[in-house]
């Protein structure tokens, strides 16, 4: 693990290197940090195994009653000396008047030990005489220090301390539990490598404009640390599939057309030779729109010819009122056929992608609304084999290399085929787009003379295969968890 340190950590390590074995308070003072900064920094460093924190007991010494009194009045031996300075030679008896009896012996003994006095005997009487040197004793010095509470360990003259301790009520000793902080061997190593300057946390505009940056260095950061997650915004995965399909169509020379989602039944059904009593036209399958109508949905010529085609082919009375009913389109074919009927091009390669609707109960397999793509090729000489070839090319570009064709039935194409593609992931053949050549009953009434190849199918199915979904609803529930995580290019 690389040891990239925060400036607080730097200061702590630097301080501990200079003064090991100190408390939080001492550390804060020495490192010029607040106690909170120290606590935080120590936590980080402990985690990085750079410091040791030892709980231990510390002793303090301070003055007790008699000690305090001595500071004011002086120690008994000092008071004796002060008396002697006025009476340089005197007897024990006269000296006793100056000092309490209880203190007298100690005063005599200590003053003699300090070398301040000399005692001589003359005629059964002890004579005290003052000597020249009466400088402060080590006890006196200690007393003045102990006016403030002092760490025992910091007291240098231990003899003086012991001596004072022997005197009654002079010294109080107190113990405090405390944490003592020290660098570990790893910490010491880090400290020795540490450059004097921690460096700047951030490069600022100010540093750059003033040129201050030239004198500064940037602090290293933990480049291996985890960064917070951000989510790259994206287009919807289903839209990505739609766009991929559009790109492929364009690359195959197709032009995209756009049409309304609401359509008259005429274009959705009648123009596609779906008889008016066909089950697909029932409300159980198709969404009809309430209280809506359409006035100019087709030309009188188109209406007359479509009507005739139905009556001839299906033997029933075709009703314009039925053709006028507005539906949500059930396929995109209504858009392509209308385009062909209106433009009547000699040659055409067009495609359309968009929503289609089915009145179904929503389930993991079915949606009421989904996307369909449809491609159409028209030309004098286009054939069923061309239709198959275009399919194969389309799938190839989608990455689906194995394709086969089966016959099927669609009401408005003849011949009709369905394509099966081999899915590697599922290891099976999957039904994809349906295709066929528009029936003459569809094209003739609309004045379309060339054969029209058409194919199409649902996009969701492709998207589900691509994103390995088993429930089609997942494509539409806009779960951010999914949108933020699903790969753009799976």
């Amino acid at each position, binding site marked *: 693990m690389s040891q990239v340190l925060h400036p607080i950590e730097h200061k702590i390590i630097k301080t501990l290197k200079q003064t090991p074995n100190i408390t939080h308070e001492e550390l804060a003072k020495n490192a010029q940090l607040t106690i909170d900064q120290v606590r935080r920094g120590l936590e980080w460093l402990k985690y990085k195994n750079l410091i040791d924190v030892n709980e231990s007991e510390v002793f303090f010494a301070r003055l007790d009653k008699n000690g305090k009194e001595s500071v004011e009045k002086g120690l008994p031996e000092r008071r004796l000396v002060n008396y002697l300075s006025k009476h340089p030679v005197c007897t024990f008896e006269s000296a006793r008047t100056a000092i309490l009896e209880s203190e007298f012996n100690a005063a005599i003994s200590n003053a003699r030990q300090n070398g301040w006095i000399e005692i001589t005997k003359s005629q059964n009487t002890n004579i005290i005489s003052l000597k020249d040197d009466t400088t402060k004793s080590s006890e006196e010095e200690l007393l003045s220090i102990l006016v403030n509470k002092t760490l025992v360990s910091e007291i240098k003259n231990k003899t003086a301390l012991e001596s004072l301790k022997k005197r009654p009520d002079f010294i109080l000793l107190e113990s405090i539990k405390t944490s003592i902080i020290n660098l570990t061997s790893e910490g010491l190593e880090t400290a020795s490598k540490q450059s004097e300057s921690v460096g700047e946390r951030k490069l600022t505009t100010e540093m750059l404009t003033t040129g201050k940056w030239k004198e500064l260095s940037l602090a290293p950061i933990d480049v291996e640390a985890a960064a917070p997650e951000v*989510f790259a*915004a*994206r*287009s*919807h995965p*289903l*839209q990505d599939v739609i*766009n991929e399909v*559009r790109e492929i169509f364009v*690359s195959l*020379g197709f*032009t*995209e057309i*756009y049409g*309304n*989602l*609401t359509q008259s039944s005429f274009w959705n059904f009648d123009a596609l030779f779906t008889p008016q*009593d066909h*089950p697909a036209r029932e*409300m*159980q399958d198709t*969404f*009809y*729109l309430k*209280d809506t109508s*359409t*006035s100019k949905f087709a030309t009188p010529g188109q209406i007359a010819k479509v009507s005739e085609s139905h009556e001839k*082919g299906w*033997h*029933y009375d075709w009703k314009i009122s039925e053709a006028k009913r507005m539906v*949500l389109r059930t396929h995109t074919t209504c858009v392509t056929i209308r385009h062909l009927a209106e433009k009547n091009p000699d040659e055409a*390669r067009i495609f359309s*992608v968009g*929503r289609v609707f089915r*009145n*179904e*109960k*929503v389930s993991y397999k079915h949606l*009421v609304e989904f996307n369909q793509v449809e491609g159409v090729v028209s030309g004098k*000489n286009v054939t*069923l*084999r*061309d239709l*198959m*070839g*275009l*399919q194969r*090319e389309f799938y190839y570009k989608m990455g689906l290399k194995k394709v086969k*064709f089966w*016959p*099927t*039935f669609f009401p408005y194409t*003849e011949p*009709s085929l369905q394509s099966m593609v081999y899915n590697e992931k599922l290891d099976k053949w999957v039904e994809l787009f349906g295709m066929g050549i528009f029936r*003459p009953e569809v094209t003739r009434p609309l004045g379309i003379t060339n054969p029209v190849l058409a194919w199409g199918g649902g996009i969701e199915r492709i998207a589900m295969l691509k994103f390995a979904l088993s429930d089609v609803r997942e*494509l539409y529930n*806009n779960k*951010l*968890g999914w*949108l933020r995580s699903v790969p753009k290019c799976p």
Partner: protein
Amino acid sequence: MPVVTLYFNRLQKLLGKRISQEKILSILPFIGLDIEEQTKDHISVEYSPNRPDYSTDYGIVSGLQGLLAIKTGMPKLKIKKGNYSIKVNPSVKKVRPFITSVVAKNGKLNDETIRQIIAMQEDLHNGIGRRRKKTSIGIHDLDKIKFPLSYTTVSKDHRFIPLTSSSEMSISEILKNTDVGTKYGNILEDSQKMPIVIDSGGNTISFPPIINSNLTTISKDTKNLLVEITSIDKNVAEDVLAVVSYTLQNAGFTIFSTNISGANNSTPILNPRKMTLDVDLVNKTLGLDLSPSIIVSSLRKSRLDAKPKGNKIICEVPKYRTDIFGSMDLVEEVALGYGIQNLEPTIPQSQSGGEKNKITKALDSLSAIMVGLGYFEAINFGLVSKEVQYDLTKRDSSKMISAADSKSQGHTILRDGILPGLIDTLSKNIHETYPQKIFETGVVFSKASNEIKEEIHLACVCAYNDVSFSEVKSVLQSVFKVGFGLHCTTQMTYLPMFSEGRTANIVINNKTVGVIGDISPEVIDNFKLRIPISGFEVKLTGLIFD
């Protein structure tokens, strides 16, 4: 799509030649059947309703025999002259004007044959029969019937013992108290006269299209059958009769004619029809160069008769092939007989380059800009719930557009704006990290004097603790400036979905094109959201495309 169950042992017997199971399975798709389910002894296949002759295993076997070249050409329907007759009373004209019929004799029924026949009857009722409205079929034990029969009408008080019942019921009771009565009674609408088939002994044989009489119930012991088909369309009735007759003939019955007369009814003629097919049309459509004799043999494999005549093929199409309208249908029969797997795909050369539509292209650009601004694209439905679109969002529902009879509760009306759906989307993501920024483009619907108008909108929402009106306004300005060089301004307005004093119209080129604001706390609370939301919605149609 209707489904037929095929038992392998029965298939083997009917095919008349030992064919391996794998071979059968591999060839079924090439006569247009999708295998739905497969077990050890049987498979279920889906057939398309335009091939009612595939509604039994007899019909499917006939198709397989063609492709396997066991039997080719058109199966002949042999109808012997029968001594049976039905007289039609003109009173049926207003309620169910047509009846047609054959008699099938000397057959052997077993459980599976009966099951196949009943399944066929149901499929024909639901498909061509349009849930019995157009056509319904009655199959009876011939030996219980005294000819001639009468197809006439009676009052609703008429009584007989209906199928599966042990006691007499009146027609009123049948319509009211039986499943079939309530299900199909509406076909007879409000007519007081009820159609009925009665024999010369006065026994009720059938009450079409509702139910047969109990008297003529068929069983394994039944040897001879009467088929009667009533209809509102004579052609369709005869098409259905052809399918049934052909199936019964395949099941081993001999078919006899029934003489029908009265009220524009007549004895059915189930003859094949002659059609001419142009060899050039076949080759031009399929992209092949087939000789007339290959075309003929292909058609025969599709169980049609065909003879070359110069550059034309004269085809004979059996009556039961109701799906064959014209030449193109015959071209498909050639393709199927030739074998779809034998068609090698080709690629036509493109004359010109393709291009995207200008609307979708503009939407692509818009999407890229929104994504660049940190917004995720959402895709919601156009068909939405009233609750989200209007109630929870406090929007005006007076011009609501409804879809009739939706099967899904959440999809009943067309959206007239995108924002409600986006707020709903936020409500489904309350456990995801904020900020949440979402946009959507799509069609919205409106109505003017009953005509529907479709327009494309862009909407976005931004949700997190520090979101503000000005943040989304910045997005709005940026989108239109970067995307289309358009300058937007905002003008104070009031809409219940937004907070008062924090709602504005979006104005571009002096036209109000949308709305922007902070979503009202009440609306946020309605969606059980606990986060501030700002957003906007802009009408793109008329602004960046027409």
